[in-house]
């Protein structure tokens, strides 16, 4: 059955700005996310320059005053999580890949899909607009604790605070809409023959991430409404002198905030899973176990949130409970990583650029995970909370998620998206030029953190009780490493745009992968499949004995293989 959708060729505006085609919407999310990543990276440059070379004017930003510093760290954190990690990992890859991987022609609700991007774009514009209002962008940290975030008198960015909150709220709405669309599509629109356990892991992970997001963001939406009213309508939801409680915000925020990290982690792990299977020429070890542990992580993520609040004055009995659950959740995650390692074992490893990124993810995320143990135990967390140890920990988890897995996915699916291959040499230079500096940025920060450096302090020299002048060289090393890391991103940008025109033509399946998106042309046409596929097997049939090829695509019927299989 052909599904090339029959309609008149749309004009340029309609085709690229008003399209309902999931692939176009994916590109919109991808490019918006990449642009925001440049912005978020630029802000990191700003505050790290201040930390590495205090009180020197920063090229491009001038002198970093305390207010500017606060705004930079707030915007860096907010942008990287809400406007880079989520749109790229979930919206871009999800939009592009889900219909292709499950074998249908678009999302179940294409117009809702378009609407979700438009709302997302609006959130971006509101956030960017906040840079130009009186007082500048919000400076109360991405966690926006009241009373600081509720009172313009405290945060000195009253307009920016309101706009930040509105931008975040709009982003939530966009992802609720988009996420529900993805979930319905993955549940309902699969090709005939694709049963639950024939679905590629990435699709499962994105769907699970969306479900986790949807279930956890509700209370924060409620909390955001209350914060907005505190900011603008003189209510006292979080004001203890008026019957409110600032801790309520913290709880509502982190009830979402902790599941949120798994919302971004699971798609990243899904991307890594797909790549490992292809480049080890081996099926995922324990597909069902990967799934069940992912579900376990999803559920457990809802009962660990207060480990972000151990020193906030919560009930100490709660601290006991949350310590236990936090340490427990490391088990299913570790299990998933072991399963990936087991997949690699005995495989025929090809170290192409996507595989380098996937392996890099595993190694770096492991470091992030084990350092989390010290923070998840309330006893040690009392010392380590809000130090640079924490910052290094979450960058060792977030950078693999938002940067490493993203590059893994881009380098892997670029041929499918754009019909061309990226340059391998440039890809490898970019990889090493990112990974090595990344470690040089954050290992010194583990050290300064254990030594006691507190986060969100713009200049240690001014805080005698926190001043450790002998550590300044470590802070400087970290900053210089960041400069190298940022410089190497130019290699990627060049490769990305240059290969549009000059990359080797990719063909449909340059990586010889078994999943459905590689059975269509690169890039796929509107409607995706000329003949809607039927699925006959799972997604990772690699290395099967008795076949001429070392992989069998999902949509090839057994009868077509009859001549190759030895009885």
């Amino acid at each position: 059955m052909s599904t090339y959708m029959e309609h008149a060729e749309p004009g340029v505006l309609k085709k690229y700005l008003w399209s309902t085609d999931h692939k176009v919407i994916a590109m919109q999310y991808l490019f918006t996310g990449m642009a925001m990543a440049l912005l978020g990276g630029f802000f990191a440059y700003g505050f790290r320059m201040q930390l590495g070379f205090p009180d020197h004017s920063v090229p491009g930003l001038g002198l970093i005053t305390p207010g500017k510093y606060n705004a930079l760290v707030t915007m860096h954190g907010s942008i990287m999580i809400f406007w880079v990690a989520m749109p790229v990992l979930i919206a871009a890859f999800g939009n592009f890949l889900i219909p292709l991987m499950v074998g249908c022609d678009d999302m179940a609700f294409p117009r809702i899909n378009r609407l979700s991007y438009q709302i997302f774009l609006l959130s971006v514009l509101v956030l960017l607009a906040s840079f130009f209002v009186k007082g500048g962008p919000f400076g109360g940290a991405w966690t926006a604790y009241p009373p600081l975030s509720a009172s313009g008198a405290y945060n000195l960015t009253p307009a920016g605070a309101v706009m930040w909150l509105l931008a975040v709220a709009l982003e939530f709405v966009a992802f609720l809409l988009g996420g529900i669309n993805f979930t319905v599509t993955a549940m309902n629109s699969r090709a005939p023959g694709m049963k639950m356990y024939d679905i590629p892991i990435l699709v499962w992970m994105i769907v699970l991430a969306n479900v986790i997001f949807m279930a956890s963001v509700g209370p924060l939406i409620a909390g955001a409404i209350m914060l907005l009213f505190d900011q603008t309508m003189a209510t006292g939801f979080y004001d203890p002198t008026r019957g409110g409680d600032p801790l309520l915000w913290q709880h509502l925020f982190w009830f979402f905030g902790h599941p949120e990290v798994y919302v971004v982690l699971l798609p990243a792990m899904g991307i890594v899973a797909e790549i490992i299977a292809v480049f080890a020429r081996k099926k995922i070890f324990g597909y069902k176990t990967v799934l069940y542990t992912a579900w376990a992580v999803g559920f457990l993520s809802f009962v660990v949130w207060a480990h972000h609040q151990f020193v906030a004055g919560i009930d100490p009995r709660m601290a006991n409970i949350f310590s236990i659950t936090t340490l427990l959740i490391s088990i299913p995650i570790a299990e998933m990583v072991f399963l990936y390692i087991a997949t690699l074992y005995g495989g025929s490893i090809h170290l192409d650029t996507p595989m380098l990124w996937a392996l890099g993810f595993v190694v770096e995320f492991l470091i992030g995970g084990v350092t989390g143990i010290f923070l998840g135990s309330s006893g040690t967390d009392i010392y380590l909370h809000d130090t640079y140890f924490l910052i290094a920990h979450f960058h060792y988890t977030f950078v693999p998620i938002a940067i490493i897995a993203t590059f893994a996915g881009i380098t892997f699916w670029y041929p499918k998206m754009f019909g061309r291959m990226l340059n391998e040499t440039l890809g490898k230079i970019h990889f090493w030029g990112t990974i090595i500096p990344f470690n040089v940025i954050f290992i010194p920060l583990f050290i300064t953190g254990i030594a006691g450096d507190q986060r969100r302090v713009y200049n240690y020299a001014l805080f005698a009780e926190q001043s450790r002048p002998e550590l300044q060289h470590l802070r400087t090393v970290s900053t210089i490493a960041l400069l190298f890391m940022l410089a190497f991103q130019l290699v990627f940008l060049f490769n990305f745009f240059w290969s549009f025109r000059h990359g080797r033509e990719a063909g449909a399946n340059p990586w010889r992968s078994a999943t459905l998106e590689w059975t269509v042309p690169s890039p796929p046409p509107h409607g995706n499949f000329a003949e809607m596929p039927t699925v006959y097997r799972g997604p990772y049939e690699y290395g099967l004995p008795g076949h001429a090829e070392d992989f069998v695509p999902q949509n090839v019927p057994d009868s077509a293989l009859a001549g190759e299989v030895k009885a």
Partner: protein
Amino acid sequence: MSATAKPLANTRSGTGIPTARLITWWVIASEIVIFGGLLASYVMHRIGHPEWADAASHTNTWAGAFNTFVLLTSSLCAVLAHKAADAHDGPRAAKLLRLTSLGGLIFLCVKGFEWTADIHEGFVLSSGGFWSFYYTLAGLHGLHVLAGMIIMLIVAADAAKNQELQRVECIGLYWHFVDIVWIFLFPLLYIAR
């Protein structure tokens, strides 16, 4: 893209539930945690602030009860619309959906009168803990009533032409959920205050 062309993705059903109804259930699930979060926050504060009882005594129980009656009746209309749609009687379904919408309008008007009276007595959003929650809870619910009414009228317009009849049940499901939220808001804000 043609406004009515549906992708193949929309017409399949791996779960056995049509896509429109499936997405409605997911929307309801997400709304449960939004309202649940706000309600839980209110309950915590209310139990911890017994002194709010004085402020809370000023809510108008009769207005609340009448509004509950209105919403229940509008829910009846919505489910009868579903029955009509199942019988492929689009015009009847449209009529019933419009009646449901009317119920929503009555609800909002009564709320308007109620709040006007409250504001005249000096009780506004910033009048203290109870009132802040009261207006936020009822306001968020009211926004959902308004949104539901608008979508319902759009669905009714199509249903009157015997088009997209499956949406009648879906908007009905959403409406019943909004009704259920009010079923809990009414005792919380008007009875056991």
